[in-house]
């Protein structure tokens, strides 16, 4: 039994941390927080040069032949740096969906440009305002010659303004499955609550599409959910780090506030949440990568626990910082916005608890 990453995987993490500390400090992130739809194309280019987008794809498709598990620590680092790039969407969400649902021909055609970072793909799931649930997908797919035509509006699409390839959940008769769309009728960038990411609506109006070969939204959704959780662990870990650091420096009543038990115990609770979350995220990623029998429930376990725990952790991070975290200048709100958004993406805690209840036979 070995439930940890390999020395090679940790070496990649260390490299990523060094690179992002240099290339993506929060001063860089702040260059993209004001304009709707803005993201760091420079950083993206440099990441592509390092081969990060190629990592989890087969060699014959322009990849480096690693598994989605090799992505885990990398997305964690990107979460730690709140990097303003569509890596999670393109490589972890849409790229993995193509890898797991595409035919050989589709993979060979669609993956190389994603792996090179030349193309940005995103995953479009929700149609209406209240759910990411597969059963509530309303976007329609009608057969048209050898392909399909999609109609509907996909909303809250992460990184839609950055994307030029859209992997869309749509309903063909009774069946919901993934479709690849090159040119939607329109993409409307929206002001994202998370200022470090872009978000938008994708309008489809009899838009040409091709169906990915393997029907259903799983396993793509659970792979994506696990990796989103891993990214959240990175962001939450950074919040704990800067909070403990601040508590050690900030003096009140003639001593560091970090020497008060009221503060220390909050931090200990945050550390406990973080480690439990880490175990849950890693397990969910392992289970989906190895197609373990409990892969689906493991993803919901991780997402439900982490969504709640990090809501608490992020809030305590602000509280311990006090007034300084209430300012725009302080970075805390950037991390908090990232976490609060990720809490809801791909299903919030209540949604995933209902899935757990169903999968546990309740």
């Amino acid at each position, binding site marked *: 039994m070995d439930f940890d990453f390999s020395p090679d995987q940790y070496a990649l993490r260390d490299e990523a941390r060094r690179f992002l500390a240099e290339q993506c400090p929060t001063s860089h992130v702040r260059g993209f927080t004001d304009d709707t739809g803005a993201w760091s194309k420079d950083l993206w280019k440099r990441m592509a040069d390092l081969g990060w987008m190629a990592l989890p794809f087969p060699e014959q498709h322009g990849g480096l032949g690693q598994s989605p*598990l090799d992505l885990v620590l990398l997305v964690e680092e990107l979460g730690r740096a709140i990097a303003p790039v569509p890596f999670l969407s393109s490589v972890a969400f849409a790229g993995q969906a193509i890898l797991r649902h595409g035919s050989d021909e589709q993979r060979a055609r669609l993956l190389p440009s994603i792996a090179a970072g030349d193309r940005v793909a995103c995953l479009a799931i929700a149609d209406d305002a209240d759910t990411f649930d597969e059963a509530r997908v309303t976007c329609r797919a009608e057969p048209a010659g050898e392909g399909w035509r999609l109609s509907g509006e996909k909303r809250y699409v992460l990184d839609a303004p950055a994307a030029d390839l859209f992997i869309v959940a749509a309903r063909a008769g009774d069946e919901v499955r993934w479709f690849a769309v090159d040119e939607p009728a329109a993409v409307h960038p929206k002001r994202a609550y998370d200022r470090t990411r872009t978000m938008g609506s994708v309008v489809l109006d009899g838009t040409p599409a091709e169906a990915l070969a393997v029907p259903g939204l799983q396993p793509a959704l659970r792979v994506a959910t696990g990796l989103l959780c891993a990214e959240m662990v990175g962001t939450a870990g950074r919040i704990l780090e800067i909070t403990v650091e601040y508590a050690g420096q900030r003096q009140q009543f003639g001593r560091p506030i*970090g020497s008060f038990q009221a503060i220390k115990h909050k*931090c*200990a609770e945050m550390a*406990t949440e973080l480690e439990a979350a880490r*175990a*849950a995220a890693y397990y969910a990623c392992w289970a989906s990568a190895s197609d373990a029998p409990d892969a689906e429930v493991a993803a919901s376990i991780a997402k439900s626990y982490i969504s709640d725990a990090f809501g608490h952790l992020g809030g305590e991070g602000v509280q311990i910082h006090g007034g300084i975290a209430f300012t725009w200048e302080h970075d805390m709100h950037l991390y908090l916005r990232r976490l609060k958004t990720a809490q809801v993406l791909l299903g919030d805690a*209540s949604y995933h608890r209902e899935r757990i*209840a169903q999968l*546990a036979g309740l």
Partner: protein
Amino acid sequence: MDLAFTADEERFRAEIRAWIAGHLPAGWGEPGFREPDSFEERLEFARAWESTLADAGWAGISWPVEYGGRGATLSEQIIFHEEMARARAPRIFINFVGINLAGPTIMAHGSEEQKRRYLPKILDMSEIWCQGFSEPNAGSDLAGLQTRAVLEGDRFIVNGQKIWTSFAHVADWCLLLCRTDPDAPKHKGLSYLLVDMRTPGIEPRPIKQVTAEAEFDEVFFTDVEVPASNLLGELNRGWLYAGTTLSNERGPAFLAHQIRFQNVLADILDLAKRTTRDGVPASQHPAFRERLAKAYAEVEIMRYIGYRIVTAIKRNGQPGVEGSVAKLYWSEMVRHFQETALAVTGLAGLLDFDDAPDQGKWQRGYLMSFAQTIAAGSSEIQKNIISERVLGMPRGEVWAPKERV
């Protein structure tokens, strides 16, 4: 990352599984089987079951071969505990202190003569041990304990009081932590004595606990004479040795604990399906359904944490950060799910014992869950440890009473 066991380990699993199936106490686990009610009957039941384990050589599974143990690998220990938990076999009860606390402490710090004298009798259960740690005024502040041992010639004279001592009135020996130098700083004046519980001047008194049962004793020591040769290791180094005792208490049985909790959770889910609320099964009632799913997630996450701890021990010889947060995590988790279970019983939970669902199991379980967040380092102590040792936060100032005008 690879969570599989090897073929050899799986063979070992099949062996232990078959053994357990063939040796469980008669009637155990069958419908209508009831564990004995009185503490005395439970002790006899435990003595019989644990002797069966000892005779088959399972008792000392974690002990090295040189001390008569099985010398099992970490994976084999995990498998053994997993299978015991999965079969819902009776837990190690009466010999727990001997096998997991006293034995390893004597192995680590005792003289050769002490090891030869005490260890075999722990393994074959001819001697039962208790642990004399907590005192009325030394709970979380264990190092502040006041039971005194004064060396007079070739013997110590012990005076004081211990509390929360399991099995004191049936134990043959006590692993006693006591103060041997009252002038030294509090951590540096403690020693370990091995005390024969039949020595005159020792008086155990059972404590009736919140569940109306009596599992613990308080123990009074009045001019108790202990031979100087029963000092464990060196004088005044007891606090260091206590670290060995306590680290064993949080040892590799973690994953087995998790399976026991999985079993409890399965029973809670079952309870929720056969208990109605607002006319529907509680398992279908939105409020309870969500709490049950939350409990399910928390118990599963404990398993993942266990995998992390085991992997860290295999790689580095000791648990990592997860090891430090594990106790806080699971003890709070137990509080949550026992509270959920009690809530599920609803109106029927207004009654107790045989008048309540499942003979009052959930009423008792709720009250017992407080033991988890209080014993073996309270949640508050765990948070101090995590903030200071894991996060490196500063220690607080020592509180001193202000003079009142």
